[in-house]
């Protein structure tokens, strides 16, 4: 028996290569600001560590105060971010494909500051803290980069919330 001599096998191999999920994941990761700077060979490793998760419309990816240890990148669909108060909730943001969120939980065991809800059927790339930690042990510079993005994100959110409170104070 011999290898790759027949056209069929060659074709099959080509097909394997072109359809690889990992490559799709790499393409998505490259679109994400936090991961865009990671060299392509390392990105391939990271891409194997993400799994795909699907969320039905109106279900929650996580709720405020949950201890959910995942980071999410949207592949398909829309996710809405809510902050709940005792008597009301605010929608803070609407996230679309290639948005990365929930990344703080990749660094520490924290309670969620907000809820994330699937506004449509949503498909995400998901990674958990333990896995991400193993990855950063091998590639520490990626952690720094992701952390930077996360801090910017938190600051922006805080800014928005502070603005809202001021508005409330003025009119109440």
């Amino acid at each position, binding site marked *: 028996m011999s290898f790759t001599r027949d056209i069929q096998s060659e074709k*099959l*191999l080509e*097909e394997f290569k072109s*359809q690889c*999920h990992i490559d799709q994941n790499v393409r998505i990761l490259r679109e994400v600001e936090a991961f865009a700077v990671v060299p392509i060979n390392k990105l391939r*490793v990271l891409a*194997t560590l993400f799994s795909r*998760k699907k969320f039905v419309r109106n279900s929650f990816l996580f709720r405020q105060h949950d201890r959910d240890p995942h980071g999410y990148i949207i592949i398909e669909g829309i996710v809405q971010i809510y902050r709940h108060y005792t008597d009301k909730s605010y929608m803070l943001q609407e996230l679309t494909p290639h948005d990365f969120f929930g990344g703080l939980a990749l660094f520490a065991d924290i309670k969620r500051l907000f809820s994330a809800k699937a506004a449509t059927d949503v498909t995400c790339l998901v990674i958990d803290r333990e896995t991400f930690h193993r990855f950063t*042990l091998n590639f520490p510079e990626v952690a720094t980069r992701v952390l930077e993005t996360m801090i910017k994100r938190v600051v922006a959110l805080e800014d928005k919330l502070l603005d809202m409170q001021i508005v409330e104070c003025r009119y109440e």
Partner: protein
Amino acid sequence: MMAHKGSRQEKRITERSLTSWIFKKYLGLQLLLACLIIVTIFFRVLPLEMQKRIINIAIGMKSLNRLFLYCGLYLVSFLMAGILKYCINVLQNYIGQKILYHLRTELYDHILQLPLNFFRKTPPGMVISSLTSELTVVGEFLGSAISTPLVNFLTLFTFAGYMIYLNPLLAIASFSVYPLEILIIPLFQKKYNRLNKIRIDTTRTLSNRIGEAISGIHEIHGNASFRIEVDRFDGVAKKLFKIRCKMNSTKYLIKFTNNFFQNMGPFVLFIFGGYLAIKGRLDLGALVAFLSAFEKLYDPWKELMEYYQIYQDAKVRYARVMSYFDQKPPFKLAPLDRELLDLSGAITVDNVAFYVDGHPILDQVSVSVGPGDQLALVGFSGSGKSTLVMILGQLYEYHQGHVKFDEIELKSLTKLDIGRNVGYIAQFPFIFEGTIRDNLLYACNAININLNPEEAQSYMPSEHEILETIENVGLGPDILSFGLYSRLDLCQERELMEQVLELRCAFLRKHRETLSRFIEYFEENEFLDYCSMATNLVFGFPVSGKPTEEAIAEKPELVKILKKLGLLMPMVVLGRHIVAETIELMKQVESDEFFLKSSPLFDKELPYYEELLKKYSGIGTIKQKDLWSFVILAFRYNPHKHPMVVLPSTFKEYVVRSRREFRKFIESHWPDEFQFIHPSKYLSYCTIFRNIIFGTVKSEYSGAEEAIKGAVIELIKKEGAEESLISKGLEFHVGTKGDRLSGGQKQKVAIARTLLKEPRILIMDEATASLDNASQLKIQQLLTQKFKGKRTVLSVVHRLETVKDYDQILVMKAGKIVERGSFDELMKKKGIFYELYQGHTV
């Protein structure tokens, strides 16, 4: 009420002497042993006489007949001596081990009954080494305790007698060395014994160190304190090393002395006997017999010396071990002169005090509880609440004052009286290895094992009672879940299997469409993305319970059918592609095996496949064996688990189309090894849950599992299959220390375990602390609604919102009761309880 089996011995095991064990049991066997020994002696002496006769009579008289006769007798006698020696050894070993077995079990029984504070100070390592290795020598000694001295003294005296019979003068001269030896050796032995005592203590320290390090392994890893621990260990190990060296040196010194004196004998013989022979006062045959006899003296003498050493060693070890455990159990196990009591539940505590190292933990505490009353104990940590309830559960012995159950002093009640009437639930209960059912029945069995079989039967809870109790403590859903995720034993559980198949029909009828998003059903004409390639090809599972890919990897004959179906080359290409991708990935992460989870390759196979890939990097012929290695990987490939490779849809279609042929091949070659998927067949390989949903949960859907499980449980309840599935769940194995259960589940099991024995008095020491609010509320309702007025409840309470329902509340502080009364009284009083309660609810 009931009679109990067995009675206690008068003398405590730790007070008995080592020698008392020798005559305790198997006197008949010991007697048989002695008889065998006496017969052996005869066969031991006979060859000597034959030796003499062969030389003096047969050779001297040149008689061939006599030569044959004596040689024959010589042969028979040493053969007999050998066989008898074998029998003696076997018998001796049997007796020794049997006595050791009794000694061990009785000592273990005694140790378990020692008070709790003994175990606080005693590391488990020491108990283990005492009961195992230290006692081994004792057993060895006990077996030979009678036979060895008997056989050797007898042999010694017989040979000595024979020698005296041959030549008294010569005999006495050659014996003259022994008295000296008897004086010297005990001196060395004394030193050896002293060292041996130190050795036992050092070994004990060493095992304690190991035990401590292993129980604290989290802390050691957390602090990376390996060096500290190794150094600590090293100190003791070094000491042990020195003592061992000294001990062995002493032992060899004893050996040397022994040998020296032993060789002195022949020396005397040669000089004196030689002289007599030359002078013609001793014939040559007698001298040869004499020399042989003297040589034969050596063996029994040596054995006696060894026996002496073993005896000394065993004595020292026995005394040491017994001294460790020489305490009186604080309470009697079972009453001797009456039956077990049925208590009413009334408790009076009168001026009770309890000390630890002179400090009062409880100080003049007095409480009175009527039958069926419910009492809550509240207070700061360290205030003595737990100690008080542990005293009431006979876990501690009070030092002053009186505790009375129905006017009977607690100290005079036996352990079994308490076991029957009092249920104690700890904050962190212990769950034993075994099934949930074993654990639930543990407390009941503990009582029943002491009863006659007929009485025991009536105290065993019925299946209905078990189910009711499980429901009461909120364990129902957990156990149902265990049942759902277990596999059926088809030979024994046919009825449940039928039930599951009915559930499958009902489930598919109702949910096939609605849940299709979350479930990949087993469809014969679809490729299964959540199953391995092997399962996809076979469209079934091995009967053996192994994963399909493993089972068919052992069948290289499958190459034929793969080839015939045109699947062989694609499978090889798939396998090789998997290897290439995995190796590419692993290069990036320096072979951290964690990253292998997205690949079907195992860590230890990497080097092999890396070689293989190198070998077949270009075009060339491939060997059958290597080809199969690639196919094995392709079998393992599971599209969902291994996203590093995506199968083209044409490949999937091809696999689906090949199923029928593949199945035919398997059926003809291994007719009984596989079970094929069919909507009306139960799949023994899969869990009950998977059998009901007849497919695989699409785990990529968040919440899919919960949604399906919810639907399944609803169906189970509707179809009335709940009871049989809970029964199945009761057979779930909880693992060592119950570590397959969550903290809350363990606690619920412990509560159910105690409730099942229906104790008149229920003691709960923060027993609901690790439960969620809902479960806690459920148990609280059980106490206050169902048990009110029926069972006396004493509860150490940590969550004050439950405290309202109790008849009486005691507030404790620093070992004293500082407030008492009903909830309303205490709130009105605005004292310590009021403040605690306010602080708690804010």
